[in-house]
């Protein structure tokens, strides 16, 4: 089943490689993706292995508090839909920085935006790779190192040869597979409880992990963030997590680039709606897997070498309820998920480096030889991929993936989102403001996470919150605001605000789809 997926995706890559005829085709799939296709791709990019395996595991252990992640992941799309998607599509070309560089000085803004994109993507990717290695080892018995290298090499083939078109289609297929797997798994969980929600929730409220542990009420909040468990800072940490999720999603570069693959803002809008339908349905089902598993699987089944492996909750649940064939299917879906998300991340990182940093910062945005930008993107993809493989192997299977993902969301919410929002909605906003917002948001997020309980100090951390959003997001906005009002007005940037506003709100002069 793994081989079938790999074979199919390689065919798509081959097909896409033949269609890649220019920068718009390589970076934005020729802007030819339709609304529902892009909706599936956005959902696919978003429903990573961390969500599918990680959240099922979190709900299995922490019950209701684990479900808080699921809620935030969907509500975050209100920010994407109402604030970001359409202006971004109308005023940009390939990357988030296009929007910023519109009326601000392109070089400093692009350099920093590119840096923050690389930071977010690389950390997110290392988290996925480490997870991938560990999961593949469990699922198909390949060792950690070869598994990581295998994933990395496959992902590079998609990105380097297939570009955005192949990456998008890999994402669409994976999203469909994931939804089929999730629906089947939900069906089997409900069947186990005789299709009675009363019985299901009753079992959840007295979850005893297949009879292997003291029953606890997973329906009640507080098992992870409650004052009794997490201390006095627990509730604030939860609020901070929620803020980071709901504002961070709209700053994740690999989600934002998806809106450039559609022909216009109207399609961008409909793709968000498609994504919201799929993502919402999927995350509601996570309660069925997570809660359901606690009523079905005992803890010993999930324990390897004395350690509870929560990432295996969903696959093991499939094995117990559906037998070996279904286990193989869910494992293949998990594998596909990792591959697809890693490919999406590499794509956005390399697009940003090639388009923002190479073409516009080093070469001042002058037209180079045709194809040069794509060549640089391919080389970047190769470097980013190789670096992530090396990092993932160096950090080994024990690194805390939640730490890396938390960092990605925090940087996205604290550095990227403030400057995107202010550049579209605040006329006075200038280059120093954008530079200050990006730099301070980036540094504050990294510092606070290093000083947090998931950082270098462990339990004795000087900063009590694992999720820095509640502090770092205001810092990001404040820095952008101060950077603007403390420096002289920029008449050029303000003059171009009229142009940006008209473009963002009407789509006049936006990048058109290229014919194939």
């Amino acid at each position: 089943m793994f081989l079938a997926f790999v074979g199919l995706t390689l065919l798509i890559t081959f097909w896409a490689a033949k269609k890649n005829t220019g920068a718009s085709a390589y970076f934005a799939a020729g802007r030819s993706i339709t609304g529902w296709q892009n909706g599936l791709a956005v959902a696919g990019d978003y429903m990573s292995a961390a969500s599918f395996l990680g959240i099922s595991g979190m709900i299995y252990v922490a019950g209701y508090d684990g479900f808080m992640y699921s809620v935030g992941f969907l509500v975050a799309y209100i920010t994407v839909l109402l604030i970001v998607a359409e202006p971004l599509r109308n005023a940009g070309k390939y990357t988030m920085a296009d929007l910023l560089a519109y009326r601000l000085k392109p070089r400093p803004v692009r350099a920093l935006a590119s840096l923050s994109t690389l930071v977010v993507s690389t950390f997110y990717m290392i988290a996925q790779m480490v997870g991938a290695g560990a999961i593949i080892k469990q699922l198909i018995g390949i060792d950690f190192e070869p598994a990581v290298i295998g994933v990395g090499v496959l992902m590079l083939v998609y990105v380097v040869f297939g570009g955005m078109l192949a990456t998008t289609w890999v994402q669409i297929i994976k999203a469909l597979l994931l939804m089929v797997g999730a629906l089947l798994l939900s069906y089997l969980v409900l069947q186990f409880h005789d299709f009675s929600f009363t019985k299901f929730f009753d079992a959840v409220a007295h979850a005893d992990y297949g009879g292997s542990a003291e029953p606890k009420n997973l329906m009640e909040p507080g098992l992870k963030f409650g004052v009794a468990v997490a201390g006095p800072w627990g509730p604030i940490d939860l609020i901070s997590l929620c803020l980071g999720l709901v504002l961070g999603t709209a700053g994740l570069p690999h989600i934002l680039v998806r809106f450039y693959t559609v022909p216009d803002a109207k399609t961008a809008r409909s793709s968000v709606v498609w994504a919201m339908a799929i993502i919402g349905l999927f995350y509601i089902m996570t309660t069925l897997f997570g809660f359901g598993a606690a009523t079905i699987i005992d803890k010993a089944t999930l324990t390897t070498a004395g350690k509870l492996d929560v990432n295996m909750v969903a696959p093991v649940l499939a094995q117990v309820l559906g037998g070996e064939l279904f286990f193989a299917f869910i494992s293949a879906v998990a594998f596909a998920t990792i591959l697809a998300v890693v490919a999406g991340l590499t794509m956005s990182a390399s697009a940003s480096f090639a388009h923002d940093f190479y073409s516009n910062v080093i070469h001042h945005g002058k037209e180079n030889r045709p194809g040069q930008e794509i060549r640089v993107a391919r080389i970047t993809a190769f470097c980013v991929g190789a670096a992530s493989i090396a990092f993932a192997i160096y950090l080994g299977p024990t690194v805390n993936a939640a730490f890396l993902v938390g960092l990605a969301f925090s940087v996205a919410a604290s550095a990227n989102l403030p400057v995107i929002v202010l550049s579209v909605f605040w006329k006075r906003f200038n280059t120093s403001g954008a530079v200050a917002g990006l730099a301070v948001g980036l540094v504050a997020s990294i510092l606070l996470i290093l000083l947090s309980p998931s950082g270098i100090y462990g339990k004795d951390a000087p900063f009590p919150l694992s999720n820095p959003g509640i502090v770092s997001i205001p810092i990001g906005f404040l820095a952008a605001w101060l950077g603007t009002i403390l420096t002289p007005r920029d008449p050029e940037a303000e003059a171009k605000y009229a142009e940006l506003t008209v473009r963002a709100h009407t789509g006049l002069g936006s990048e058109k789809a290229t014919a194939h």
Partner: protein
Amino acid sequence: MSEKSSVNWEQLEAKPEFRALLAKKKAFIVPAFVFGMLYYLALPVLVGYFPEMMKTKVWGEVNVAYVFALSQFIMAWVMAFLYVRVATQWDKAAAAVIHGQG
């Protein structure tokens, strides 16, 4: 961006039709977004600081906390539906503003 030179952006921006469109968008987006955020953040605040109240059972073992969490999904979907409905009208207004340009 070939039409850059041929479009008078300032003039378009100052058009009463365009200003009206912006005002209409603002009148929907700002309250909708603020409501969405408040409704969403009420969840962690209530769950964090009033856990006993949130544990009140409403239907069998299903409690207020779970119902409120599920209602967030409904809220997000309803908001997306309402947004798409009004945004379709904005598309027409935007087309009227740029009629004859670019």
